[in-house]
């Protein structure tokens, strides 16, 4: 005999909340909790084993005016983002257009470009470290074959960051390519037909049909790329350990070093929050200006 209790327990809203509970508990304890804790820690000086000490805005002040390395890390990261995001997206777009053909073996090509995405960043970084070796690496060997001068790649402060950018772009191409490809295949053929009837050539069709129709997806991919490239860490940790001469010290790498090598937990938390604020600002900015270039039907 159904009682009021069982009726309540078996009702849809209750079932919904109960099914959501595991995820909510996980998010609360393992994501939201630490995020709030980090905010509190950013106002303290703490090395994990001694009692924490309140310093108010001291960490933030130190970051802005006392520590030159924090400024260097933000500048390096900005440099990285400003280059890898546009270059990566433009290349992925071209790749997606290229992959959007019905030729034989196209699936193999798509898979080949996607493989670096699913490979571990550490494995990829180690591989590229070998390719970049100034004396025994393949890249300098290839340059030599074309009688070009060898580069010091990761060993020189001016070439180290571009070297890392190359690895990141190469690695991220497949991911954006797949998403853009899906978008491309959603563009109705009638629009292309109508455009060619009106006399549009290949370039015109691309600029006036493909791009506008793809713009929501490009927006999505850009937002994601900006967020993830601000957080670059694996390559800088594995390939150069932030060097040489701090040329590849990115913010997340610096946070790692401050927190886990020098045990300045408060300072590292403060750095994380400033990074968060910057990423948030960039994201909000992108959402703001989407009205001017993203075309929604």
């Amino acid at each position: 005999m159904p009682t009021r209790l069982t009726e309540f327990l078996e009702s849809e809203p209750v079932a919904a909340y109960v099914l959501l509970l595991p995820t909510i508990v996980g998010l609360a304890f393992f994501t939201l909790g630490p995020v709030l804790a980090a905010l509190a820690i950013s106002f303290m000086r703490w090395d994990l084993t001694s009692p924490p000490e309140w310093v108010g805005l001291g960490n933030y002040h130190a970051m802005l005016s006392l520590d030159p390395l924090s400024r260097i890390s933000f500048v390096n990261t900005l440099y990285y983002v400003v280059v890898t995001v546009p270059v990566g997206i433009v290349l992925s777009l071209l790749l997606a257009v290229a992959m959007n053909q019905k030729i034989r073996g196209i699936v193999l090509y798509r898979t080949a470009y996607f493989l670096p995405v699913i490979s571990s960043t550490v494995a990829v970084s180690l591989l590229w470290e070998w390719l970049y070796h100034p004396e025994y690496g393949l890249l300098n060997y290839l340059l030599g074959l074309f009688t070009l001068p060898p580069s010091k790649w990761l060993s020189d402060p001016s070439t180290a960051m571009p070297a890392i950018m190359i690895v990141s772009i190469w690695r991220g191409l497949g991911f954006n390519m797949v998403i853009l490809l899906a978008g491309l295949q959603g563009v109705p053929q009638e629009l292309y037909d109508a455009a060619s009837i009106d006399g549009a050539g290949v370039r015109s069709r691309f600029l006036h049909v493909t791009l506008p129709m793809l713009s929501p997806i490009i927006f999505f991919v850009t937002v994601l790329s900006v967020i993830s490239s601000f957080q670059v860490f694996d390559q800088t940790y594995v390939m150069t350990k932030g060097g040489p001469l701090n040329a590849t010290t990115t913010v997340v790498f610096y946070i790692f070093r401050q927190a886990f090598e020098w045990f300045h937990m408060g300072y590292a938390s403060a750095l994380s929050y400033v990074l968060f604020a910057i990423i948030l600002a960039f994201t909000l900015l992108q959402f703001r200006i989407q009205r001017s270039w993203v075309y929604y039907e």
Partner: protein
Amino acid sequence: MAKTWTRRALLRFAGVAGGAAVLAACGATPTPQAPSGQTPSVVATASPTQEPAPASQQAVSLTFGAWGDNVQTDILNSIVSAYEASHPNVTISKQFAPWDGYWQKLQAQIASNTAPDMMMMSVAYIGDFVAKGVVLNLDPFAEAKLDLSRYIPVDVSTWRFEPKAKVGGKGSLYALPYDASINSTLFYNKSLFDKAGIAYPSDSWTWEKDVLEAAKALTDTTAGQWGMIAPYTADGTWTSMVWEYGGETIDPTYSKGTLSEPSALAALKVVYDYIYKHSVSAPPNPSEMVNPFTTGKVAMFFSNCDCLIGTFKDIKGFEWDIARWPKGPKGRTVELEPDGYSLSSSTKHPEQAFDLLKFTVYDDDGVLRQSKYGTFPARKDVGQSEEYLKSPGFPAGKKLQLMDVAEDARSNYFGRGWMEWVQKSDQALQQAWLGKKSVEEAAKDADDAITKVLQGLGESLF
């Protein structure tokens, strides 16, 4: 009519059951993880009605934390098995990790009060750990049970700290060494020396005369061959050169860097000149993956670790050996860096843990096993024994290190903030090694970095 399980009903049931399970798990006390040595656990074979085993036979569970490469881990595994075999009431839970991850894990364990009973300890961090009170004072045990004269003296004094001291050297003992790694080691490529007809490095070699002459004769850029890899690595190489020129990295009050002083600077200039004035050194490569010495294209390698003997054992294609560290104007000094073991100050079994410690670093069995690694043993008698010197894979020159060790061996100001000032000063000096700044400027930057760390110990925000 039979009530069948509709899909909707099944989902709701799963949801309720899952939710209940989550709530139950949250509410229950967490079950203990792998034995952490926090509470003695009686061996489970006893049935509930039997009396508990007598205290001396009571089963004890210890945790043993360590870092190491494959060779080291094999040695540690054999030590643990040997100990467990001779002490059947003790079970040891091993927590081995690579160097990088070990310290982060250890810090987290200390913070959560689950530090291993016996933990491998590095002089890089001992100062900080003593200051935080997380390692056990070993004086009571050492005085009662050990004869510390068995060890190389500086190998033991490095682990002594007075209360609130910035640097070690005297006071209470907080760890025992298992090796006396020599951080100033000259490896040389015998085949290259033979081909060029140059005499091997000898006892009387000095930096500015003999080393330079040999390096010049052995450098052939057309063949991609270098006379040396200059001693620019941090901790050991230029450090001991600074001593040999009468300088110091840090002042006697341990509060500022002194690399800009003329005598220290003179030593650093020698290194710089090898690279840029005489061009006898392979170009410094900060992200070097493979040691160029192993390719057979480098005649002399000034290493900051004799532990590389283990790596070089597999070298084929040329003969190599170790020579005595070259002399400076003030003589010869090598840097000695012990690795050792500490006990956690929160261990529940100090007596048993000390027994394990003694087995590993003091008794013959443990010491002999560890000596197979390649680094110089902490116990003098083992280091001098034929068995050690004739270990397979050891170069003939290994015994020359005995003399280096016996004479002026010093340790590198191990104390609080060590890792930080060494890393920062190394980064500063790299500006010189990479040719971006002059030695004077780089040394000044290094001094500033060192001074900042030493004066901000425990107080600094970053």
